[in-house]
């Protein structure tokens, strides 16, 4: 025990002399843990909110009864079923629009607490433990979660108003309630949603038999199915975040690994002395592991704290994009339990072991008498480089295998990871080759020294350069994909959103009235109603949209692929078109037949495939008449109106006045486009932020490595100085060396990044979202990133070189004195 503490003290004394090295190990673990826990916190928060949302009505509810046609049904059916002994409880759901700019809405859930099964809980509140009289009485209660309360900028007990000016029941804070949800008594819900006597569904706790014959035509039984629908839809989004977090984690570990390896190298003498003084190998290993553990815990604690800050900073963006893309409500503040954050420390320990175990093992096998010389180290790297090349080859094979045979998002990411790691592992070897080739070309002594010395620095710098390569390649890849997507998306949106006014009627009846009214308005040149029905195809939610025949679709609805006379056949109700992602999912191509699950619908051929970016659900385009014939419950969900630009405001006002529609139901094209691009931008805001953070981490890695290296380079530089090279010249040479190495890395990073971008648009996007994008190369963006990479490395080398420039001749003389 005493020996252990002695060994530990001796080992730790190293850090007092090499504070920067100490800092770099700490920084590596800190950054790795911070980015990883930050990303995981975002994912966990979102997932726990999905779970809360699907558990608003938790209880032994196995099934529910849904209307066969339309969205609602008469509550008389509920009473009839109860009188037949069915244990059903009514629910009315709808969106309640709230005032404010931008207008937002909550999912209003009307429940009937008396008929709910006694074991149920609502938003985590046990049925028997809440104030029933206050809830169902007048004015009642409106339950909201903390996030919704903040969104409403209201206080509990306050009475808010909706966008129509209706007074809501007093707000009651329910901490466990999911964001974006408001729970009220069913009576209040019917009043607020203008659905007197109407219900959306019946929760079924027990059925005495099959549905009675006089009810079966109106209701159908749906057994409990995937309530994790939201989770599944958003999986790819979270996987993307996870992949970025993992990349950052690896980059952070690279730093730690490099610093630990260097420290071991420098402590060879110390270890030799300790062994020679009788400290057993076992004790020494324990001491090294303890030291590593200490770093891990400290780095982990700092990492978790920063991870929390990072997640809190990114969460609003992530929440906004989840809301925009999937309609998923995620709280704007973090509320994860304390134990969750402790896991972050464990991750750090795991990372430290991963980064340092190799070095500790090497220390165990260290030939005691080997000289602690950099050149010796470089020579020792020879076999290591060959081993790296071998591993890289295997990884490339794996990536190829995943690319050829893989058909899932994880395999696509495995391919990316394989590719990136292989490239990183190959980098030192390739740099070495390039430098060797350069060395043969160089004639002048100083130039020869320049290249030879760079080669000698390579082993120490290689990990930092690998990190730089990874970060730059990821930046190029993600940047190209995002920009390419933006370009495609904006073009597509411009075509798709070319009507001037979009109207969302309250229900089908109102929709039909609006169509009739608009057709009498001379200002409106084209009025296109859109019918919709939601179905499931192979377990995937699919929207079927029914459109009327009109020539504007031929220009407005860009098709990726089509058969001859596609639009005519669609108009005759003899064919359908599919969104790209649905076609991929169902493995359908042009000419294949699609059978939709309606009682009477025959299978129809697919005559067109179109892009439907940003829609997590599948989409089918069909003729409206055909749709309504096969699905009487299809609803009129939207109207688009074409008219002269100057008449838009007047018609909008007239529409709103005539049909009592608020601003969120009548939207001009410009506002809709702005909203869509806004969603798009926010979606990639978190990605972009994480990406630049990763690049920053790589910069830190390079900086720290150069710093540590700078301290040990005196021995190399002193002879040159003694031979008459001036100190400033030495500084410039050093700068040149760094620039050369990082330029070579940047040069390799760009093709790698483009390859990555191709993988992202052609493999990962297809697996994650179901759409394939064209690959765009943006030279300006590449140039910017290359400059950024070079600038990072310049910045990193500035401090060590500045120190070198200030070195006293006395210090430069010391290596000779030491040798003597």
């Amino acid at each position: 025990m005493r020996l252990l503490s002695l060994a530990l003290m001796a080992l730790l004394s190293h850090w007092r002399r090499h504070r920067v090295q100490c800092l770099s190990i700490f920084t590596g673990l800190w950054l790795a843990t911070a980015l990883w826990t930050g990303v995981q916190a975002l994912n966990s928060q979102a997932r726990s909110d999905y779970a809360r949302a699907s558990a608003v009505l938790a209880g032994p509810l196995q099934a529910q009864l849904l209307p066969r046609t339309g969205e609602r049904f008469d509550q008389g059916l509920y009473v009839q079923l109860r009188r037949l002994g069915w244990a059903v409880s009514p629910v009315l759901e709808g969106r309640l629009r709230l005032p404010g700019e931008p207008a937002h809405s909550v999912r209003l859930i009307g429940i009937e607490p008396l008929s709910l099964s006694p074991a149920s809980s609502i938003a985590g509140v046990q049925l028997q433990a809440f104030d029933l009289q206050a809830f169902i009485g007048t004015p009642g209660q409106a339950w909201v979660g903390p996030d919704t309360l903040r969104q409403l900028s209201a206080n509990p007990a306050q009475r808010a108003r909706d966008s129509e000016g209706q007074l809501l029941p007093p707000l009651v804070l329910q901490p466990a309630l999911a964001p974006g949800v408001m729970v009220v008594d069913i009576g209040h819900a019917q009043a607020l949603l203008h659905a007197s006597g109407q219900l959306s569904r019946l929760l079924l706790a027990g059925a005495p038999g099959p549905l009675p014959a006089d009810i079966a035509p109106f209701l159908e039984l749906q057994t409990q199915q995937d309530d994790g629908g939201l989770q599944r839809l958003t999986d790819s989004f979270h996987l993307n975040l996870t992949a970025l977090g993992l990349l950052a984690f690896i980059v952070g570990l690279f730093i730690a690994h490099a610093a630990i390896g260097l420290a071991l190298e420098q402590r060879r003498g110390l270890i030799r002395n300790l062994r020679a003084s009788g400290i057993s190998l076992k004790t020494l290993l324990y001491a090294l592991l303890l030291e590593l553990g200490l770093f891990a815990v400290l780095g982990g604690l700092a990492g978790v704290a920063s991870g929390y800050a990072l997640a809190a900073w990114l969460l609003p963006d992530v929440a906004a994009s989840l809301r925009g893309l999937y309609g998923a409500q995620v709280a704007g503040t973090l509320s994860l339990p304390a134990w969750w954050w402790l896991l972050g420390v464990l991750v750090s320990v795991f990372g430290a072991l991963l980064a340092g175990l190799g070095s500790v093992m090497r220390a165990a096998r260290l030939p005691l008498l080997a000289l602690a010389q950099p050149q010796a180290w470089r020579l020792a790297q020879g076999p290591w480089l060959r081993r790296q090349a071998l591993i890289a080859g295997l990884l490339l094979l794996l990536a190829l295998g995943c690319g050829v045979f893989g058909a899932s998002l994880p395999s696509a990411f495995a391919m990316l990871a394989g590719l990136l790691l292989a490239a990183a592992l190959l980098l030192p070897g390739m740099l070495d080759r390039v430098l060797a080739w350069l060395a043969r070309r160089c004639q002048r002594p100083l130039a020869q020294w320049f290249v030879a010395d760079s080669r000698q620095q390579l082993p120490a710098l290689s990990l930092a350069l690998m990190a730089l390569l990874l970060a730059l390649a990821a930046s190029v890849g993600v940047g190209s994909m995002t920009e390419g997507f933006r370009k495609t998306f904006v073009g597509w949106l411009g075509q798709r959103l070319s009507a001037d006014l979009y109207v969302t009627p309250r229900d089908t009846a109102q929709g039909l009235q609006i169509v009739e009214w608009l057709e009498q308005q001379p200002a409106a040149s084209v009025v296109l109603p859109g019918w919709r029905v939601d179905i499931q195809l192979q377990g995937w939610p699919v929207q079927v949209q029914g459109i009327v025949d009109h020539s504007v679709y031929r220009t407005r609805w860009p098709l990726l692929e089509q058969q001859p006379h596609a639009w005519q056949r669609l108009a005759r109700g003899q064919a359908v078109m599919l969104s790209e992602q649905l076609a991929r999912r169902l493995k359908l191509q042009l000419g294949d037949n699609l059978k939709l699950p309606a009682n009477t619908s025959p299978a129809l051929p697919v005559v067109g495939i179109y892009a439907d970016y940003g829609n997590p659900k599948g989409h089918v385009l069909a003729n409206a008449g055909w749709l309504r014939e096969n699905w009487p419950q299809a609803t009129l969900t939207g109207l688009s109106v074409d008219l002269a630009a100057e008449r838009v405001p007047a018609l909008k006002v007239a529409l709103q006045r005539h049909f009592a529609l608020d601003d969120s139901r009548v939207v001009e094209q410009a506002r809709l486009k702005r909203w869509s691009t806004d969603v798009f931008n926010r979606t990639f805001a978190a990605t972009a932020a994480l990406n630049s953070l990763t690049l920053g981490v790589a910069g830190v890695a390079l900086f720290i490595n150069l710093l540590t290296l700078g301290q040990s380079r005196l021995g190399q530089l002193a002879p040159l100085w003694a031979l008459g090279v001036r100190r400033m010249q030495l500084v410039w040479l050093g700068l040149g060396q760094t620039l050369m190495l990082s330029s070579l890395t940047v040069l390799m990073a760009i093709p790698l990044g483009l390859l990555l971008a191709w993988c992202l648009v052609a493999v990962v996007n297809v697996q994650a979202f179901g759409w394939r994008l064209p690959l765009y190369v943006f030279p300006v963006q590449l140039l910017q990133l290359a400059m950024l990479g070079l600038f990072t490395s310049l910045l990193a080398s500035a401090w060590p070189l500045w120190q070198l420039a200030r070195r006293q001749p006395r210090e430069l003389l010391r290596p000779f004195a030491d040798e003597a």
Partner: protein
Amino acid sequence: MKRNAWLLLSVLLCGCDQPAPQSYAGLGQQAGEFSQVTRDHRLAFPQDHGPHDGFRIEWWYVTANLKDAQGRDWGAQWTLFRSALRPGPETTDWNSPNLWMGHAALTGPGGHQSGETLARGGIGQAGVQAQPFRAWIDDWSLQGRGSIENLRMVAGGDGFRYDLQLHSDHPLVLHGEQGYSEKSGKGQASYYYSQPFYQVQGHIQRGSQCIAVTGQAWLDREWSSQPLASGQTGWDWFSLHLDSGAKLMLFQVREARGDAYRAGTWVGPQGEVVALDAAQIQLQAQAWSAQKNGKKVPTRWRVQVPGHGVDVQVDAVEPQAWMQTRFPYWEGPVRLSGSAGGRGYLEMTGY
């Protein structure tokens, strides 16, 4: 009378599922704007079989003592409570002031089974209509054929069900002073009448077993806005069919401090009614049974009404007749022995 009703609903409404003494205070709440029970009011039929808007609490309560072909004793209970959140007429939507609660139980050899269901007024899921008489909640019903003298009583729950025909040719019994029934000696009262003379036949079902039964049943009707005084902690209530054909209703409302308030009604075999006051009644708990939840309740009583020659021992047919409802209480059939034989029902709350 079934005093537990108010307690149950007030407990339900106050969001407290503990039958702790303080929750009984809810029964002593001031009735406020609700209609008041007055001594000079005269009951009128058939209107009074229906619900009484304006009163806070009301119930339709049937207990039946049954025998099967093997001579085994069974008991069936059918109860519908109406509780108003506020005074006012019934509506035709969820805004109804009324909450309805049904309790049903079947007691017999091998145990006691009970069920409970709740419903909002206004939408037709539960309600009562006076003429033709009909009381219902979900698939439980008490349906009159022609008049309240002929009823079909149907209810069921987890593992039990009954379908009974009730018939009486005796007049209704008005308790207290022409139906004005005092509860505390401090002015708290309810309107209270009964039909204790039903003859019953029908079927009971336990599990998959269907059994034909015959027997007697007792209907209680009561409504009020504030039937109890504060400080009253619980009650014991007896409805007894004596072998002589006479009927005896007795209750005591226990006080936190001091003597219980007692009253009753003696009904001769032909329906002649004599009100009983505290001095004419003696009730003594003699043996206690622990229920499944650990509560101990008296399941053997000595009941004396010396003025009518009654000195009987009342034993629970099934001592485990605990109603595992939102607000639990004891309710079950009893057997009489001593000066007179007979059967009846006993309800005990507040233990």
